């Protein structure tokens, strides 16, 4: 084998086989460990209390945009056939691509506003950690690459479903097939690599608040009263005494 292609092989193997597995394992172990042992640190760390006006122009476009874009990626990954079927009609393909691109720009706009807001406000600098900056820059890079790909390498929603979804599934199925991804242009490769790096760093950042999105709020009753013991049983002499006090809430 030639030295160059050996190097390329090594490089592809590392970034598209080793890195994904490391990222997934760190993500799973990291978030579960963090949630179970240090849940105090689980917070969206909102800074709205210190600055609320500029936040509007950053937080809203960013969050709405990233939700849509993320769901788009997720759909193409989970339902590649359906995505391709949808895209078989050019109008629908273009509608999908345009929507994705607009929300991608919205993410970018939001992130840049948030970044400027963070570094230009003295109060906010106090509540900004190094990790916040790293995540912010990584996200900006990923989104710029993503928008570039959407413009320059059409039609992403189709080739994602056709080529990348099988690759991601091969990772899930523990038999990585990296031929397709190895042949991708470098911009796309970088986008993928950065995405895995974000996944890797996820448990060590404020991004964890995404995992505790309060969806259960929709179904719970408004009021919440907590008894430490079964109040109907507590005065009953037959209720056995328990040596372990209940953990409240």
């Amino acid at each position: 084998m030639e030295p160059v292609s050996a190097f390329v092989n090594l490089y592809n193997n590392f970034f598209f086989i080793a890195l994904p597995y490391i990222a997934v394992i760190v993500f799973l172990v990291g978030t579960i460990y963090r949630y179970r042992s240090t849940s105090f640190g689980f917070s969206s760390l909102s800074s709205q209390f210190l600055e609320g006006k500029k936040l509007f122009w950053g937080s809203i476009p960013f969050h709405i945009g990233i939700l849509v874009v993320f769901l788009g990626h997720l759909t193409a990954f989970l339902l590649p056939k359906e995505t391709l079927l949808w895209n078989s009609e050019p109008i629908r393909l273009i509608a999908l691509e345009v929507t994705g691109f607009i929300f991608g720009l919205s993410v970018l706009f939001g992130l840049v506003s948030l970044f400027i807001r963070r570094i230009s406000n003295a109060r906010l600098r106090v509540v900004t950690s190094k990790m916040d900056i790293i995540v912010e820059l990584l996200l900006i890079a990923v989104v710029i690459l993503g928008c570039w790909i959407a413009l320059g390498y059409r039609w992403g929603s189709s080739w994602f479903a056709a080529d990348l979804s099988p690759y991601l599934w091969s990772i899930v199925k523990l038999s990585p097939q990296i031929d397709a991804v190895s042949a991708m242009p470098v911009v796309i490769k970088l986008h993928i690599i950065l995405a895995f790096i974000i996944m890797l760093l996820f448990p060590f950042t404020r991004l964890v608040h995404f995992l505790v999105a309060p969806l259960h709020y929709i179904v719970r009753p408004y009021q919440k009263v907590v008894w430490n013991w079964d109040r109907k049983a507590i005065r009953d002499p037959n209720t056995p005494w328990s040596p372990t006090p209940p953990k409240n809430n």
Partner: protein
Amino acid sequence: MDVRSQVSMVFHLDKCIGCHTCSIACKNIWTDRKGAEYMWWNNVETKPGTGYPGKWENQDIYKGGWEKDGDSIALKGAGKKKGLLNIFHNPNMPMIDDYYEPFTYKYLDLIESPASDDQPTARPVSLITGKPIDIKMGPNWDDDLSGTPDYARNDPNLEGLTPAEQDAMFQLEKMAFFYLPRICNHCLNPACVAACPSGAIYKRGEDGVVLINQDVCRAWRMCVTACPYKKSYYNWNNGKSEKCILCYPRIEAGFAPACMHSCVGRIRYLGVILYDADQIESAASADESELVDKQLDMLLDPYDPEVIKAAKANGVSDSTINAAQGSPTYKFVKKWGLALPLHAEYRTLPMLFYVPPLLPVMASVTEVSKDQNDNLNPIAKQWTDSWLYDTSTEELWGTIDQARLPLKYMANMFGAGDESKIKGQLQKLMAVRIYRRWKTVGDISEEKVNEVLKDTNLTAELADEIYNLTSLAKFDDRFNVPPAHREQAIEMLEFAGDEKGSTGFGIKEKVQRGL
């Protein structure tokens, strides 16, 4: 009947001297930490005034509490729909500047600055950025009516008063004010609990204390919006909301909360009240005119055998039932009808009650005739000239209507806008005074006193009881809450000193800002 127990406080506003000792006691124990400097779980406001955070009572600005929504009620600025839609940016959230930017002074500069022709100064610096700031606001910025044109004049409770009435309140010679100490009301229909998307806030079944689980709070900040009293605060440093915990670690151990224990004026009373939780919904969604009455109807007679039976079936312990029977707050609120909830119109069913102040009503000085002056009991005759601190006018009830703080103003705070509530209550307070004056000074006829007592549905015994608990009560009379049962240990009994500077109890990890 779903009988539950609630630890409830009464504030006797006539006795508050506005010393802020309560606030300091609370701050020293709970909130002298980074991110919490600006929080005053207990604060004392001058009324009329805009309070802390500025104009907190104006729900058009802050969107706190519940509002009527057909037959039911809905949160005004939060809730499932509004809360989740606004989660990325909450338009109804108060900002740090609505409270104030916490500050300290560079005291060291006073000592360390080199000798010069000028006095050294200690500049104020922000406790957030550490940079010098101009102080624009503080937690009691409008204390004692300072800055009246900007603050007292903008008191939201002036709503419904004519401009003439308002002007009359602020004539220099006639100005009157009183103090309003505030902590979390540990409501029966808490808006903060309902607004929390994470479900981190809950009401303890055993004693009704409303707490935020710090491990579950995710900084969605909806409680800050929802609490109409602005008593849930966002810690800007560690990204968790915090609020008054009614010193539950102290209460569980049988001690009074710090604010109460340190109260110089001894204005606070703490006791257990039994209530019927089945009525919460209907009481909270009652018509505005019925809100106060319906809330008071929920509170149950702790001597009623039915109530005791139902309480026991519900797991309320004997010590709690005993305490409810000796509860000073029950007496003020139900037996004597002297204490009212603050801003019942927010519909959170607040369980802290206030005895509205009579003093500014009465504090007028009148000239008495020579005759009257000669007839005075020597004890009352402290004035060499013929000026008298007027409490014995012929028209006994007249003075209440001509109060220097208009009844409407008081009613906006304590009666959900209904003046008759305040009037009856102030008349009772007045009757007790007249009765005591008859006893100690003796310049009022017995006939008159009996008439007054009859008018206010009081008896001599009741008047004595009220007088005793108001003026002479010892600590144990004012504080009657049983310690928690160890076998039912509630949160955790730990030594408060060990936890000082941390976020609280039961958290074993280092309390620090998340990544």
